[in-house]
């Protein structure tokens, strides 16, 4: 057992317990969202010792030097003095300018900023409510458009953050937005390479950003987008994507439905199966996978076995942590 000190108070951290769990257990209000080391919303700073290496994995060098670390990934090896960072260090305030339905359970949320918000299309940010509740959401637009960020947010029945965004947040409200994070984005290189984009549900959000970015950069290789859900009513932007496919001869769009009712123009089945019946060999392809964690994890292995190299597979699993 080691002792954690925060603001003159001391807290026990048990063997096998993370700093985040230890502090939450003792009613310290720390923000967190994924508990997997992905979202970085639980970042804190050690005021004395160097944090364990595993707790700094994925952080920028500048933050590592200052002894910042992820509380959810830290099994402390010795006593630590911990500074809870002032959240304003990492968050900017934006104003909601659009909140409207894209389909029966998904909204389009657009947040505007006074100055440019720098990000790569497809990265995600953490949104934070004034009580500290934090969740990760992917950006759906490209940075060149305006000083805004676009999100697609699905209502999870009983979900604290998504229901709040759907039911209580309206145009004119302000909301705290973190720095952009994640590695799932397009780099303008090897422009003749095939791009495979596979998403389920709101997994379309980052893919829409990546697609717009690739087209804006004049990507010449084939770009295939597969968007899956159970029912037609849970897909969205179908007409827009079809329109885009008409305008760009290298862009191909396949909406996929895994339910029983599959109208003309839709592929029947799970995206996993449909993708490989269209593109059996993925050698030299660049692959983007976003959405349901199970789909993302299975597809990662499958696309690798079909020939994509590890370095060419980009993925964001929309983990929902159980609290």
């Amino acid at each position, binding site marked *: 057992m080691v002792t954690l000190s925060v603001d003159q108070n001391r807290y026990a951290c048990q063997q096998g317990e993370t700093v985040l769990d230890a502090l939450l257990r003792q009613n310290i209000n720390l923000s967190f969202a994924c508990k997997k080391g992905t979202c970085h919303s639980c970042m804190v700073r050690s005021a004395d010792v160097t944090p364990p290496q595993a707790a700094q994995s994925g952080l920028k060098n500048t933050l590592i030097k200052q002894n910042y670390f992820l509380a959810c990934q830290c099994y402390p090896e010795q006593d630590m003095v911990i500074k809870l960072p002032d959240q304003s260090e990492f968050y900017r305030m934006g104003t909601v300018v659009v909140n409207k339905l894209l389909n029966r359970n998904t909204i389009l949320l657009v947040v505007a900023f006074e100055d440019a918000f720098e990000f790569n299309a497809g990265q995600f940010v953490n949104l934070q409510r004034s009580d500290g509740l934090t969740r990760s959401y992917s950006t759906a637009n490209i940075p060149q458009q305006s000083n805004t960020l676009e999100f697609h947010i699905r209502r999870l029945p009983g979900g604290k953050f998504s229901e709040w965004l759907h039911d209580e947040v309206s145009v004119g409200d302000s909301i705290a937005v973190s720095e952009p994070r994640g590695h799932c984005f397009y780099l303008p290189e090897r422009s003749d390479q095939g791009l495979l984009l596979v998403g389920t549900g709101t997994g379309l959000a980052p893919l829409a950003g990546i697609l717009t970015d690739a087209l804006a950069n004049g990507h010449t290789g084939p770009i295939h987008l597969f968007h899956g859900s159970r029912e037609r009513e849970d897909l969205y932007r179908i007409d827009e994507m079809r329109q885009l496919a008409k305008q760009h001869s290298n862009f191909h769009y396949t909406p996929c439905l895994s339910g029983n009712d599959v109208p003309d123009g839709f592929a029947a089945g799970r995206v996993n199966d449909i993708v490989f019946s269209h593109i059996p060999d993925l050698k030299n392809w660049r692959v983007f996978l976003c959405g349901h964690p199970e789909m993302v*994890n299975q597809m*990662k*292995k499958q696309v*690798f*076995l079909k020939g994509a*190299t*590890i*370095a060419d597979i980009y993925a964001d699993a929309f983990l929902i942590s159980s609290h």
Partner: protein
Amino acid sequence: MSATLYEKIGGEPAVNAAVDIFYRKVLNDYRINRFFDNADMDKQIAKQKAFFTMAFGGPNNYTGQDMRNAHANLVKVGLNEDHFNAVMEHLGATLTELKVPSDLIAEAAAIAESTRNDVLGK
């Protein structure tokens, strides 16, 4: 000071290239793929990197005890000499595919071979 095997083979980029080829071979080999059928591919890849860094005698200080522990659960579900031989086969084939000179392949194989008893819990 003369270059280490790890440096001669090409350091981290060589490890990454080797993992790509090796992991595909392993997942396609019905004799051993059940041992690697873990849902989390990123974790598996991190372990494959550890495997190659070690086989190249690189900066990763595993002890025999660590190798025992890392594979103890696999031994419980039947890991045996045949499986070990299959992995050795894929190691050699991977490095050949990467055009690593044969004397360096032999060095890497000898390092891997030296862990046999620990890996198999003997």
